[in-house]
């Protein structure tokens, strides 16, 4: 009798008493604001776009070589220098002393910068030349005239 299996039998949910929420606000006559208890924060674009505030800089994209990934002329690039650059990251690199935005290709010991537009050739560092990645592009902002 003691060994009755009850695991497959549905067990009714116990109905514990519900704790009433502490009322902090004064009770006012009229319809209470339904948003009062939610305490939601408004969406903050800065928080969305910037993870490392001290490491984030904005740069302006100029040119058409990255249209394939959605970076167009005049877009604002959000560049995070705290992110470690990896294969397929979109990066800002220093080429001949100037900034250029390209996709980082890093496979089988080979490193190069690839454009996202078939009319542009890859940038391959020459013998002894180091490729300096300045930062990783985490977003691109496009603003429209209104």
């Amino acid at each position, binding site marked *: 009798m003691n060994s009755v299996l009850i695991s497959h039998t549905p067990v009714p949910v116990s109905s514990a008493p519900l704790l009433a929420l502490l009322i902090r606000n004064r009770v006012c006559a009229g319809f209470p604001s339904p948003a009062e208890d939610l305490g939601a924060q408004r969406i903050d674009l800065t928080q969305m776009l910037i993870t*490392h*505030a*001290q*490491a984030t*800089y*904005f*740069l*302006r*994209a*100029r*040119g*058409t*070589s*990255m249209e394939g990934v959605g*970076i*167009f*002329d005049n877009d*604002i*690039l959000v560049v995070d*220098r*705290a992110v470690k650059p990896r294969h397929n990251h979109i990066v*800002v690199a*220093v080429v*001949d*002393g*100037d*900034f*250029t*935005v390209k996709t980082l290709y890093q496979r089988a010991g080979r490193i190069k910068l690839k454009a996202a537009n078939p009319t542009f050739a890859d940038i391959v560092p020459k013998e002894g030349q180091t490729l*300096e990645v*300045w930062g990783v592009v985490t977003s691109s902002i496009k603003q429209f005239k209104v």
Partner: protein
Amino acid sequence: MYALVDGNNFYVSCERVFRPSLNGLPVCVLSNNDGCAIARSNEAKALGIAMGAPWFKIKHLAESDGLVALSANFALYGDLSDRMMSLAAGLGPKQEIYSIDESFIDLTGVPGNLTERSHKIRNRILQWVGIPCGIGIGTTKTLAKLANHVAKTAERKPGSYPEQLAQVCNLAVLTPIELESVFAATPVSEVWGVGRQISKQLIEGNVKTVLDLVRLDPAMVKRRWSVVLERTVRELQGTPCVELEHSPQPKQEIACTRSFGHPVTEQSDLAEAITEFASRAAQKLRKQNSLAGQVLCFIRTSPFRQDAQYSRSITVPLRRPSADTAVIVAAALNGLAAIYRCGFKMAKAGVMLLELQPDTVQQQELALEDDDAADRGRLMTTLDGLNQRYGRGTVLMASAGLAGNRRAWSMKQERRTPGYTTCLADIAVARA
């Protein structure tokens, strides 16, 4: 235990973040009005350019050695400084921001290997912000400052100090013999608080290196020199005498002075300049919640020119202590009218606010005269708010003139780089 984090050739390093093509070139940053070199890259130092070298004397190096000179871009330096400081703060629980490129960190209670930790923070500042730093660690602030000098010099001049002290130098973990040899290799003039006069006297007294200084008896130093130098010696010996300062004391004097881009002779032009300086000073005054009792105004010609010389200042007392821009400007302009002489080429002018007191203390008085003492605090708050939000000079006293940077006395900043991080129209371009 203290650390001192200090950006290497800070202004030049800031410029290089956004102009990598400047890496490896001799670069210097010039003071206001492109007067003299206030920051030099290592390559520029190697050309023999001294701190404070006048631009006209080193100009020829631009032709002969490719020296690049830039006008100071303080908006950029201020922003990068802020980023650097907030990362440096990660080193320990308390921080004192000592200048735009230096901060002391109190390392009390920080566990683990402080040298390793400092290397990590240094690498983070370099990677995240783009600024190379030197970090010095010691049991007192004076030793931390000295350690910082060692960390930087060991990196810049290989062979000057042991290689492993480069970038991060922790004097607290050196053996007594190692510490002595570091002290012996450092001239006494590099010690924090030892100025040019004192170091000359010390050298005459055969105290040439830090080792010589640290071996002096503090009591004797107090008798022969001063209590200030005594404190320095005690700090070098490892006894903390200088605490970390968390919130800077309100200033006892506020000044806004400027050299002009071109010589100014007209009173109307000087009045514009004086108005702007007085307005700027009044704003600083309100920022620290103080009132001024006296306004000093001065004008002078350039001592470096062959022209007729004139230099005068005047102190104008205020009817009652005030932080009202209009009151302070009016006092400064009254002062200017009293000291102005025509026919002189004025090179510099300034306004100083004296007899400062907190704005919470207001002396009550009998209202015998009828003057408009109405509280204009709200107007001033609004004025500061507008200028903060829409940019400096959005709302100004009309006597400051409306021609902006084209005013006769405006600063010369011919070589200034854009506000890469503070103005959206100025952000750097990446080729896509």
